[in-house]
């Protein structure tokens, strides 16, 4: 069973009244955003840790909407990083290689860590680049 | 014993024991009272015993003005806690399920928040009653250990029920088990304490009224 990358599908129809988790969460996000503005402190909410009624996650995602930026990461399966319509509020969805969701987080930050290049990867990259140049150089000399 | 075993015990064998002692105890005590009998009244009846008895059951439940002025506190707090207690026992949805299971009868429940409020009000009323009984010199003199026991047996299920519903302090199965156990202790001791008044009250009132009714006077 595959879930769509954009928004999860729920198969159970329930009345609209069950949305009491949405508002408090949005309030929490607002408080986090204020904290980010005032002190620069970023925060993360794990959507899996919140008891959500069927359809509530979708409502949260709809309420946050989509902003200007969307990035896709290809590491152990896809990850989608979008800035919501509220600047500073990011939605990060991790998928595995079968496109099943393995984690969904709301990050309130200037820039999610996972988007930044990691120093270990940069050291590795520099090495690989040097090796590649060596290989090319060798080829030129030999050819 | 794990908390679930504790819960299973109070829902099973514990409930069984308590129910049997309660039913047997109440029936024996009532029969004992009824079979005391009375000497045949040789005087000619000037009115109906039954009517007089029934009338008094009603009239004694309604205070007259003078009595009210004398002991307004007792009457008001007494009515509050009795009403709250009875409504929360008989009109809380999970309780009705229990009655349905045992007696096969069921009736509509009150909304849970209403029961919640009633329980709190009853607890407060019971606390003020005991505070007054202990602070008033005359009442303290009249109090017997049996009175304190009856009070304790009554307030414990209310408090434990409130805690079980709001899940305060202990693991939920333990709270529920303690609540059920407190009710079972109440049931076991009920026939042998002043709590028997729940049944004897009406018998006593009827009898008072019946004597007057026979004589053709108001009680």
């Amino acid at each position, binding site marked *: 069973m595959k879930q769509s990358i954009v928004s999860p599908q729920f198969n159970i129809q329930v009345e609209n009244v069950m949305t009491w988790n949405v508002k408090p969460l949005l309030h929490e996000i607002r408080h986090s955003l204020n904290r980010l503005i005032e002190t620069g402190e970023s925060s993360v909410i794990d959507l899996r840790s919140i008891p959500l009624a069927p359809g509530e996650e979708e409502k949260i995602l709809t309420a946050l909407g989509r902003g200007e930026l969307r990035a896709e990461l290809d590491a152990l399966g896809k990850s989608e990083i979008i800035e919501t319509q509220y600047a500073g509020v990011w939605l990060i969805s991790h998928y595995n290689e079968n496109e099943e969701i393995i984690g969904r*987080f709301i990050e309130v930050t200037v820039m999610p860590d996972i988007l930044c290049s990691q120093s270990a990867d940069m050291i590795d990259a520099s090495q690989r680049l040097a090796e590649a140049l060596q290989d090319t150089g060798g080829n030129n000399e030999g050819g | 014993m794990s908390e679930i075993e504790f819960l*299973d015990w109070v829902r099973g064998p514990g409930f069984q024991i308590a129910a049997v002692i309660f039913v047997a105890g109440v029936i024996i005590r009532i029969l004992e009272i009824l079979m005391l009998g009375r000497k045949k009244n040789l005087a000619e009846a000037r009115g109906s015993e039954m009517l007089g008895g029934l009338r008094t059951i009603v009239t004694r439940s309604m205070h007259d003005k003078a009595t009210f002025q004398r002991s307004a506190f007792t009457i008001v707090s007494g009515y509050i806690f009795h009403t709250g207690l009875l409504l929360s026992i008989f009109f809380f949805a999970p309780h009705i399920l229990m009655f349905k299971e045992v007696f096969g009868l069921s009736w509509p429940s009150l909304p849970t928040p209403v029961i919640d409020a009633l329980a709190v009000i009853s607890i407060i009323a019971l606390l003020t009653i005991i505070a007054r009984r202990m602070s008033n010199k005359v009442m303290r003199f009249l109090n017997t250990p049996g009175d304190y026991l009856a009070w304790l047996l009554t307030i414990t299920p209310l408090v434990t029920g409130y805690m079980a519903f709001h899940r305060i302090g202990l693991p939920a199965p333990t709270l529920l088990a303690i609540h059920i156990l407190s009710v079972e202790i109440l049931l076991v001791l009920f026939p042998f304490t002043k709590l028997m008044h729940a049944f004897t009250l009406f018998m006593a009132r009827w009898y008072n009224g019946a004597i007057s009714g026979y004589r053709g006077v108001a009680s």
Partner: protein
Amino acid sequence: MSDRKNTAQADLTLGEVLRKRGISRRSFLKFCAATASMMAMPPSMVPAIAAALEKARRPSVIWLSFQECTGCTESLTRSHSTTIESLIFDHISLDYHHTLQAAAGTHAEAARIASMEENFGKYLLIVDGSIPMGNPGYSTIAGVSNHDMLMETAKGAAAVIAVGTCAAYGGIPHADPNPTGAVSVGDLIKDKPIINVPGCPPIPVVITGVLTHFLTFGELPELDHIGRPMAFYGKSIHDRCYRRPFYDKGLFAETFDDEGAKKGWCLYKLGCKGPTTYNACATTKWNDGTSFPIEAGHPCLGCSEPDFWDGGGFYKALSMPTENITQNIIYAAAGAAAAGVAVGALNRAKKSKAQATHQKVKLEDLNK
């Protein structure tokens, strides 16, 4: 499962293994975020998890199955988040698991003994199923009784994880009248740290989450008073149930197909054990977060609690007595009526006897 592979990877840390496989730091961070979520830890723990996983060493795991239905193994192997779990499970060395291993017969037992000797004091022992104490012949593996195999294998274990309610609390074999004299792992082993991961079966990510926690930090997670990891079993189903507000308002489904059931009201009256059951179903959910029994409209059975099979029936509300009270009440009433009459008659006899022996005091008596 081979000795060669064992020694080749034994000294590498998880970080080294991942780097060798060409997994970038960024991928590793994603892996750590998903792992934190899986272990029900706050996202703020991700750096600590990353640091610990980096240094985690490959543990040897021996899995013993006793009186069980293999549902727990099914649950674990049906966990679909392949990437993350496979990273973890590629990393552990599952040296013995009689459902999953390729070896059979003496070779299988030899693998277990070899692993025990090689990793004495360090391997992780996982058990599913309860242990029959009534007769050792009720359940044996390779001619060895479950009890003997457990005691022998537990000796060199660093810790024991009891997976499933049977291993944790006796479960279904232990249900009344417990014909095999089934006991839990904790009933037998007293000198080793034990983690109980109950459930029938446990949620897949709860099993992997607990394993991951042990692998990551090399120590037991915080446990509750009956040995369950607080991260998953710290809150009751009821406390995290999205139908809870209906319970609080007193709105209940009366049957499985009435208006209340269709509106998603509380299932208390249909026998839901959510109020007395501690598990992660309401948040972690099943089938990759798709749903859980209450969301599907069925009351919670309470499968992660001891003796869940003996609670008087899955469809009996928690406030109902579990035994047949009515019948006994009728007997009690009949008996009491007879007793009451007897007592009354006795009282009457006493009274008339007193009347009969009553003597009037005369004036001359007083003048004596």
